[in-house]
């Protein structure tokens, strides 16, 4: 056909974006009652895996299925690929059963990134709800590595209960030690919890950042993000200072399957991280 250039390598197919590469499970770590972290390394033991904070991979479990999971590890470590997810579906439940040495199919990394570079020299507000802390953890690693490059950094974290809090040793404690203001709240307290109770948005009015020049990165359930953005805007932040990570059903991650459409965008290609002014007009529309 005239519309497509003929190629000379007839019969040899090019790189197929739907085919995974094999990774071996290095470690499966329980985070809380329904959340676990999966550490993977390339089966050939050599391939370096590079990604930027905010990106995700498609992980395939033999015969069970393939799902998108954000990368929750340190982007300066290329030997290990880390994902944190809740075991709430068929694939993630099967994933939690995997043992060290088991293989898993991986495609990626895909998607847009958090504005870690743009944020240099400015204040940063990170607002996470529940498992929403996982896609933001690479940002926090990055800031911890280069703490002097950023102004005031605030981490506002809301969990369901004190037992649900993620990454206490890896992030929450080191963050405090590195002059990151960590303010936490839980929906429901248990005996021994001396911290705050309530929604994460209640932490925003008194957080220490300069709303005129700060960048905000927000990840959590859509309703949490909506109220967080409202609270940030009440502090004086504009839509183009706020970044959110969106989620939709996804089968391919390369723009073929159509499932992840959100208005005119494909979450897989145009997201998952969006500057809020790009999707503000879609945000309140029901069942979009």
């Amino acid at each position, binding site marked *: 056909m005239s519309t497509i250039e003929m190629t000379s390598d007839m019969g040899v197919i090019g790189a197929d974006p*739907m085919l995974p590469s094999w990774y071996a499970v290095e470690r499966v770590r329980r985070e809380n009652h329904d959340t676990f972290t999966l550490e993977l390394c390339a089966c050939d033991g050599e391939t370096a895996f590079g990604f930027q904070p905010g990106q995700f991979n498609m992980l395939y479990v033999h015969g069970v299925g393939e799902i998108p999971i954000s990368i929750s590890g340190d982007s300066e470590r290329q030997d290990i690929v880390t994902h944190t997810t809740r075991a709430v579906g068929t694939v993630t439940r099967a994933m939690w059963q995997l043992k060290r040495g088991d293989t898993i199919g991986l495609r990626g990394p895909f998607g847009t990134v958090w504005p870690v570079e743009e944020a240099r020299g400015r204040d940063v507000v990170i607002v996470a709800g529940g498992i929403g802390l996982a896609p933001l953890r690479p940002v926090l690693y990055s800031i911890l590595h280069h703490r002097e490059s950023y102004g005031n950094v605030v981490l506002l974290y809301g969990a369901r209960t004190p037992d649900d809090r993620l990454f206490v040793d890896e992030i929450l404690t080191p963050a405090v030690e590195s002059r990151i203001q960590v303010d936490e709240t839980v929906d429901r307290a248990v005996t021994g919890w001396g911290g705050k109770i309530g929604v994460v948005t209640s932490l925003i009015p008194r957080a220490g950042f300069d709303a005129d020049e700060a960048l905000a990165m927000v990840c959590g359930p859509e309703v949490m993000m909506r109220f967080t953005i409202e609270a940030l805007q009440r502090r004086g932040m504009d839509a183009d200072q706020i970044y959110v990570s969106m989620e939709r059903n996804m089968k391919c991650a390369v*723009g*073929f399957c159509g499932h992840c459409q959100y208005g005119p965008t494909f979450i897989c290609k145009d997201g998952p991280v969006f500057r809020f002014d790009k999707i503000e007009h879609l945000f309140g529309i029901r069942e979009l």
Partner: protein
Amino acid sequence: MSISESNTNMNVIDRDGLDRLFEVLVSEGYLLIGPRVRDASVVYDEISSTRDMPVGLKDEQEPGRYRLHERGDGAVFGYVVGPHSWKRELFPPVQKLYQVQRNGGKPDMEAPAADVQKRALIGVRGCELAAMAIQDKVFVDGPFVDEQYKRRRENLFIVAVHCNEPAATCFCGSMGTGPAARSGFDLAMTEVIGGGIHEFIVETGTELGATMLDAVPHRESTEDDRVRRAMINETARQGMTRAMRTDDVHRLLTRNYESPRWEEVSERCLSCANCTMVCPTCFCSTVEDVTDLSGDHAERWRKWDSCFTSDFSYLVGGSVRPSISSQYRQWLTHKLATWQDQFGVIGCVGCGRCISWCPVGIDLTEEVAAIRESEHPAKRYV
């Protein structure tokens, strides 16, 4: 560009010449895919000669209605489009992505070999060529390439046919895709029948097309042929009764996410997904994983999917679009509006399939008009 202005080489073959062309294509290694009748409708499948084709048949189409009738002549292409579209040849309804054998260590993965079969598509209409160009943007022109699609596409030989008699559901005229084929063909034909004549005026679109035609007995076209061809096309153009206004449709639909019309249409829509299955541009797919009894052999298949299911938008906790109103809104708004943001073109070619094959006869041209009308209610004089 109107058909009379096209500056292509034009020749004429007779009725036997068509079968001769098919023989030439087969001898060149092409698998012939063309229209044939199955389950009382014209579908696309393998053919070996015009004997397999719906010769002398005409389709009558209305919202929710499709019937085949005898024409009373021997026209080979005297119908328009049925429930199949050519997308099934490039983007098959069911396709294996890969298979994996577990054997203790690193699993053995095998992807299907590249599909190198050459296919000649016989009787591709203008709207269908436009649809193929639209799917190219999805599968070939993006940052990622569907290699199987690309390979099949490269191996096509396209024999287009200009439509002589549009169905009542056709609105390609207003979509700028027909009734005459514009581009993207190797050969394009106008069928001339009546007054003891049965011939095909053939335009050549590519050098490959010219080579194939050279092997078929033909004569050069005359001024009479060209006038006849222009008249047939003009008659077809004027015979089209349906239209859709598109200049304002992007802004119209994207400012009407909350229109009450979505609820209204959802009371009629059965969310059966027929419209998405027959649509020549709809490209959504899902995947299915299967294993053998041992669990060691796993396969992953890609299948056509539809935004008219609640599974389509499932996330932990439920479906994002559980209601029919939001599913219909997603389909129509994507097809006509956000498709333009994504691919720079509108996702509809005006073939009318979704109108004919909707069991309750929902007509997208009517839905768009109703939403437009809802913004400017007709003045009432009391």
